[in-house]
Every structure is written in structure tokens, then in C-alpha cells.
């Protein structure tokens, strides 16, 4: 058995002529947490729904918790917990009613465990879901996604719309009830600074492609902002991994993925430069809206 809880190779998915996912590959070792990051419409939800076998892929191979989503989606649902983006379902039920309603669908449903989660998340049992706060609804979603003790949890933008306190609480729940239990987690978000503390790996999805994947710390080492003089920009070819170029008077501020090597090259050539580390939000921005072509226009 492989140690990979999730592996995706060359996944492609189009709706009609619109390509939503193109050549997506990723791997998540068992027990690790992957954060899928992207702007709205980048393909995060399509990716997640394809992983769960809710949408058929056009091509590519996938294994999720040992199952092929295309052919074994029933078994997959027993091994995977899923928290959908839209949490407004069954508004008229109470938390307890929801648990009782869902129980027959899952052979491994553990009613005692479900009850423990309600307890730990301090969720009222007899209040209708429509009257719960947004944070409570997410917690309830998490409780029912975990009640059959899945190996893998897939959460679609669980922090969406939560206030900062609820987000932090959610992160804590994720660490406490998913990571510490050894579960593999894939979750999507568009708040990079928020996922840094929690994710082992981040994958940046942009217009259907994964443009970068790696541990947050590696990204911070590799992607840096460098200030250069106009002359350097004019003399040299654009470096590999150039993400963004901005002009400030006589100098240029660029963002490079692979900065340590480029800085080494510039130093060796005797050019002066300034480099600074970036926050993950800035790194994300450079990947998705950076303008590397401005190097040539210099």
C-alpha cells in the first residue's frame, strides 16, 4: 500500500468548451494537510467535486483513500468526510435531527462519536440549523463529516464568511480533531495567511492549473521581492521563475520564484540589489496577478 492518501495525475475537466482543470497533478501523503488556494472561479470546487467522484473527470487518474473516484465512489464516501461549500442544507432540522437523518446513509456512522463532536463543538442539539451562527453551521458540518471516522477529510472553503475569531477557532478544530487524529486533510481557501499555520503543503490553483505547490516555508524562501536598477533589468534576460515586475522611478521591484539562485547570479555579476521576504498573501498575489512581461517592456 502506498503512503499517499490522495494522488492526482494529469487531471482534466471541461464544461463544454470551457476548460476548468488542466493537467492538474498533486499528491498528499497520509496524515498531511494540503491547502488548495485560488481566487473565485480558479477551479477549487470543481477539483474537490471531481476528487469525490461527484463530477466525472475528462482524463487523468486519481486515487483518494485507496479508491478510484470514477468507479468506486460509494466506497470512497465511506472513507472520506466531505464538507461542502454550501452549508445551508436542511435549515429546518436541528443538529440532532440532522445526525439521525444522515446516520442510515453511512454504514460506519458512529452515533456516539457524532454526539461527542456536538459536545466538543458546543453545538446546541435542539435549535434549528437556520438559527445557528455561521461558525456553528461550519462546526456542525465538520461534526457530521467526521462522524463516520473517515481517513481523509475534504473541506470546501470551510472558513468562507467566518469572522476572524471563528476562523481561528476553526483552525484549532482542524488541528485538534483532524491532524492530531492522523487524518489526511484537503481544504480550499483563498486566505493564504490563514492557512500558513495549518497546512503542510499549499497548492496554488490559477485558471485551472496548479501554478505552484510546496510547504509554506519553502515558498517563503524561494519567492522573494528584489529591487534592481533599471540598467540590470535592461542588460539581463528575464530570470527563470519571474512572477511580477513593477517600476518605481529609476528602479524595478520584481518578484522571483527561485530567488536564492537569481540573487546568487546577480551577486556573482557584481550587481547591487535589495531583497525582502514576502507574506504569503503577497506571494499568492504575485502568482495569480503578477505581470512578468513588464521585464521586456523595460
Amino acid at each position, binding site marked *: 500500500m502506498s503512503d499517499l492518501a490522495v494522488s492526482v495525475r494529469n487531471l482534466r475537466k471541461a464544461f463544454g468548451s470551457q476548460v476548468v482543470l488542466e493537467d492538474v497533478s498533486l499528491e498528499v501523503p497520509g496524515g*498531511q*494537510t494540503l491547502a488548495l488556494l485560488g481566487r473565485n472561479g480558479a477551479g477549487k470546487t470543481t477539483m474537490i467535486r471531481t476528487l469525490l467522484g461527484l463530477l466525472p473527470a475528462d482524463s487523468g487518474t486519481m486515487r483518494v483513500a485507496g479508491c478510484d473516484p470514477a468507479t468506486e465512489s460509494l466506497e470512497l464516501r465511506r472513507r472520506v468526510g466531505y464538507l461542502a461549500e454550501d452549508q445551508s442544507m436542511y435549515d429546518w432540522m436541528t443538529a440532532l435531527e440532522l445526525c439521525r437523518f444522515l446516520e442510515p446513509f453511512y454504514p460506519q456512522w458512529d452515533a456516539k462519536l457524532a454526539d461527542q463532536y456536538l459536545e466538543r463543538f458546543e453545538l446546541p442539539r435542539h435549535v434549528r440549523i437556520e438559527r445557528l451562527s455561521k461558525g456553528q453551521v461550519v462546526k456542525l458540518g465538520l461534526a457530521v463529516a467526521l462522524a463516520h471516522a473517515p481517513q481523509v477529510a475534504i473541506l470546501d472553503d470551510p472558513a468562507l464568511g467566518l469572522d476572524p475569531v471563528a476562523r*481561528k477557532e476553526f*483552525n*484549532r478544530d*482542524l*488541528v*485538534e480533531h483532524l*491532524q*492530531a487524529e492522523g487524518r489526511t486533510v484537503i481544504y480550499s481557501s483563498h486566505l493564504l*495567511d*490563514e492557512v*500558513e*499555520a*495549518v*497546512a*503542510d503543503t499549499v497548492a496554488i490553483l490559477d485558471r485551472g492549473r496548479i501554478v505552484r505547490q510546496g510547504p*509554506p*516555508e519553502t515558498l*517563503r524562501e524561494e519567492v522573494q521581492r528584489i529591487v534592481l536598477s533599471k540598467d540590470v533589468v535592461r542588460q539581463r534576460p528575464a530570470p527563470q521563475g519571474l512572477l511580477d515586475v513593477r517600476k518605481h522611478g529609476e528602479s524595478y521591484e520584481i518578484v522571483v520564484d527561485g530567488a536564492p539562485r537569481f540573487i546568487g547570479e546577480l*551577486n556573482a555579476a*557584481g*550587481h*547591487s540589489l*535589495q531583497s*525582502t*521576504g*514576502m*507574506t*504569503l*498573501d503577497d506571494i499568492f498575489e504575485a502568482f495569480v496577478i503578477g505581470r512578468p512581461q513588464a521585464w521586456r517592456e523595460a
Partner: protein
Amino acid sequence: MFVHIERGSSVPISRQIAEQLRSQCLSGTLIAGDKLPSVRELAQQLAVNVNTVFRIYERLAAEGLIELRHGDGTYVCPKSLKVDAQLETQRDKFGLEFDALIQQGVMLGFTANELRTRLTSALATARNSQK
């Protein structure tokens, strides 16, 4: 044990935590024999990835600051073992100060060659004074 994390900072979270624990061990805020929270407890307390906390503990243990006693817990080491870590901290600090100094030099308009010349002469002076 008090650790404060600044999210969205340009300093990686793992380094923020490691530095705070290190300086608490060195300054004596944490004393020899103190038991640290388990990896899991600290991860939960800070809402930080369990593997990240584990790597931080391993690193501090390798520096001789703390000791991971299998099946028992994590303890702060006696001072004598901290020399390596102290050196490590001072080197880190020196690196930051050096970078800041160079940055200042660049802003003051020194060219790379001028800075290199200065470094060479400063090195020569330092070597001479060591003899």
C-alpha cells in the same frame, strides 16, 4: 508558556515560534527541568500544524535546548548544554544585523564594489587584531 504568533507577518510562523521558545530557554523564563506542553497540546493551543510544532521541537532538541524523553514528555535542558544554541541565536542575530547594515549602505548610495572593498578591509583588520 507564552507564545505569540503574528499571522500575515513576513517572518514564517515556524521561525516565530522557534525563536520565542529559544529565547525563553536562554533568558531563563523557562528553566531547566520545566516540562513543555506536548507537541499536540502546543499545536492545539496555537492552532498550528502538528508537524510544524514537532519539527520545531526536534530542532530545539538538536540545539541542546530541550530534551524529548520518549514516552514521557519534553523538558528544558540544563544551561551547560545550551552553548550551541546560544551560538546559533547569536549567529542568526548577526545575520539579520549584517543584512540590515548592507541594506542601509545600499540606501546611502554605496555601490556593490565599494561595499565589497569595505568588507575586505574590515576582514583584514579583524584578522590582524586576532593575531
